[in-house]
């Protein structure tokens, strides 16, 4: 089990990691989710031993790793830009970690074949690195990290350099592969779809701290902090007064900030069962999203902008009334 406690890293005046506490159980996949510059890559480098800590500890099964050099940690790390050894072929790249373990050549070749088959690159052994496509290079980098069977696999934006379809395809592959081999994983990404698809637990990082950690559904439904909610794409953050008053009327929520998910709204002519309060307004913008529309609704009383997800078409200027599903309102921590 990986235990990070109070990990702090500063670069000059900037604090990249600000007292990070994190545990990853053996066999668990934890995603670190956050915008670029939030310190998530620094956290990985600190766990790998590539970045010395200014304070705090990184432990594996209770053993303090501070002072243990990178190459003795038995961890795997896959970089976004692959960092493949361009002067060697695919097999030699994958075999590198095994050679460091002094594995015998015949077993090594066997293992390389196995791992390449596992990532869907059977028969790629002798291909030069320069001839690989982006997706193939990604798989080779993954195979190289997996081959020595590291006790912890760290993935730094592993799919960051791929186009959307390839990315979705590989996300799915990565998910089932990690499940199948049961490796312990720390996965850094800025894409919440990727994090939710792959991870058992997701830690949302903001400015060097972990703002929220929990299961994907838990985080989606109860982001707890306005920053986390906004990062996940929940635009509707509103302050509820003591008596439940909001700019356009009332909400059945306790006082304090809340987030209304975009799918919390139902047109009155298409009412949500057990519908709660009503909100009326004028459509000021419409965006087509394939299976739905996204509307910007300017509320009648209050002149407040809400992001509304609606299966039915609408046009700018339409006056619409919605009911709000109380189950899709989540309270946020104040401040």
């Amino acid at each position: 089990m990986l235990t990070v406690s109070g990990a702090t890293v500063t670069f000059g005046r900037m604090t990249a990691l600000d007292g990070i506490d994190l545990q990853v159980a053996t066999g668990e996949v934890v995603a670190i989710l956050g915008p670029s510059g939030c310190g998530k890559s620094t956290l990985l480098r600190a766990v790998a031993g590539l970045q010395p800590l200014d304070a705090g500890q990184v432990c594996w099964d209770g053993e303090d790793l501070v002072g243990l050099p990178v190459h003795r940690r038995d961890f795997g790390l896959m970089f976004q830009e692959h960092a493949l050894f361009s002067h060697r072929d695919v097999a030699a790249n994958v075999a590198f970690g095994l050679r460091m373990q002094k594995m015998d050549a015949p077993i090594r070749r066997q293992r390389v074949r196995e791992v390449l088959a596992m990532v869907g690159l059977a028969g790629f052994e002798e291909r030069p690195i320069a001839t690989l496509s982006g997706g193939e290079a990604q798989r080779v980098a993954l195979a190289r990290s997996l081959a020595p069977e590291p006790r912890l696999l760290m993935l730094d934006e592993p799919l960051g350099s791929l186009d959307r379809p390839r990315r979705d395809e590989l996300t799915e592959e990565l998910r089932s592969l990690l499940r199948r081999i049961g490796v312990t994983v720390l996965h850094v990404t800025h894409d919440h779809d990727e994090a939710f698809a792959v991870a058992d637990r997701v830690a949302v990082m903001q400015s060097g701290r972990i703002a929220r950690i929990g299961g994907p559904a838990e985080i989606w439904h109860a982001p707890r902090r306005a920053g986390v909610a906004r990062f996940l794409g929940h635009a509707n953050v509103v302050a509820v007064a003591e008596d439940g008053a909001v700019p356009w009327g009332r909400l059945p929520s306790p006082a304090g900030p809340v987030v209304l998910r975009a799918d919390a709204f139902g047109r009155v002519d298409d009412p949500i069962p057990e519908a709660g309060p009503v909100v009326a307004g004028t459509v000021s913008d419409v965006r087509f999203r394939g299976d739905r529309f996204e509307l910007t609704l300017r509320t009648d009383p209050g002149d407040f902008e809400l992001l509304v997800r609606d299966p039915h078409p609408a046009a700018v200027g339409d006056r619409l009334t919605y009911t709000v599903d109380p189950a899709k309102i989540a309270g946020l921590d104040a401040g």
Partner: protein
Amino acid sequence: MRRPARALALALPAAAVGAFMALFFAWPIAGVIVRGLGGTGTAAVLGDVLGSASSRSVIWFTLWQAAVSTALTVAVALPAAGAMARLRFRGQRLLRALATVPFVLPTVVVAAAFEGLFDRFGLAGGGAVNLRHTVWAILMAHVFFNYAVVLRTVGAHWSALDARVEDQARVLGASRLEVFRRVVLPRLAPSIAAASAIVFLFSFTSFGVVLVLGGPARATIETEIYRYAVVRLDLATAAALAVVQLAAVVALVVVSNALERRRAVAEPVSSPAAAPRRRGPGLVANLAVMAVILGLPVAALAERSLAAGRGGGYTLRNYTAMAERVDLLPGTALAALGNSLMFAAPAAALALAVGGAATLVVMRAGRGGSRHIGRVFDIGLTLPLGTSAVTVGLGFLLVLNRPPIDIRTSVLVVPIAHAVVGIPFVVRTLVPMLRTVNPRTREAAAVLGASPGRVRREIDLRVAARGVAVGAGFAFAVSLGEFGATSFVPRRPETLTAPLALFRLLGTPGEALRGQAMALAVALMALTAVAVFVMDLWGDTRRGVF
């Protein structure tokens, strides 16, 4: 690695390199300085030198011919650097290798080529135009010689620049010329400045070219040092001039190093998208200019070496004559060629050993806390590159004839002197190559379980292997062509090198000897070209500093 082990791994090669450079570079140079500043009752010499009108005019000429040479070289080579960086065409690699040949040609061979050119086209006096012994001859030869410096330094930087930025500017409405002026040139400025500094340095300390092509009429500090020391035997004045030369060179090297450091920071890490592949009249014009500037002198030299003389027609007589004794040489021209080859191998090996150790120091120190040691080595090892070979030769003459080492009259002095001149070439080839290694690759290896020593073996050494081949080729070529330092070695059959023999043949009137000089120049050029060519095709030297 534990701390003491790491310190030792830095200290051992540092001490070895330090000792070699102290003995064979710093000490001779110190000897020159002490003598020049008036060590033994010649205190007034430096003052006399600086005060005399003729010395001042020599210093002034040295400066302005170097400045004009630099400006002309940049103007001529910049378009070609752009063509090489932005276009892809068949034979490009070969062309780049060919374009590098003039730079590594022995300076005396370059001089011989231009003498041949003037002879061939009747520009050597007697006709309407006389170029022999004029500043024009010197400037032309400097452009020829330094063309590759700009082509390679600026070209490498240029091809590393993201071409999409230029496309962006075009889309925004900038004309080709505006794109060049506002988008390309400002980004290239650091490498143009660095290349200019190197060209200026080489033109400032140019010896063989000025001595032969400038004749008695055109003297630079460098040729004056030689004339005072070797012809007039006035070592005090020679040393004083060498001090002036040294001061100028140190200032230049410091500036050039600062510029290069800025460039290293500015260079993007990732390689940009593929360059546009437009060919056309621009490319043809560039290749034509290149062919005339670089090809014509070489062609003229080859033609002259085969010319039969007054009767006309062509013959191999000039080549067979190399095996015959000539009165003014202590040995035959052929024997001199053999000597040069014999000296080049140990000189290259020595340069590689010392330069390799120095590279180790620069790279290791760069990562640890001992950064200033790396910096001292980086700059310190550039100094012999700029320090004129003549000053080194003068230093050897002044100090290596008494304990701790008395090797002035030994044949050993030649390969050692050549190695000192070759070491910077090895370091400057290896260090930039190793700096191109993406640090992420080293980290990936470390995470996969490679110890720091293993990372160096598995990653750095693989990259350096090509650099070693290239550096060895450079050092070999440098030794083959070394003229400045060798010209101070006592004249004996065993120490007569091909460039020395060539210089004496060139300086002697008479058609037969001139023909033989051309033949010897061609032979020396062929040997050098082979060394450089092999190394260039072997290792991809596009990222080298030269």
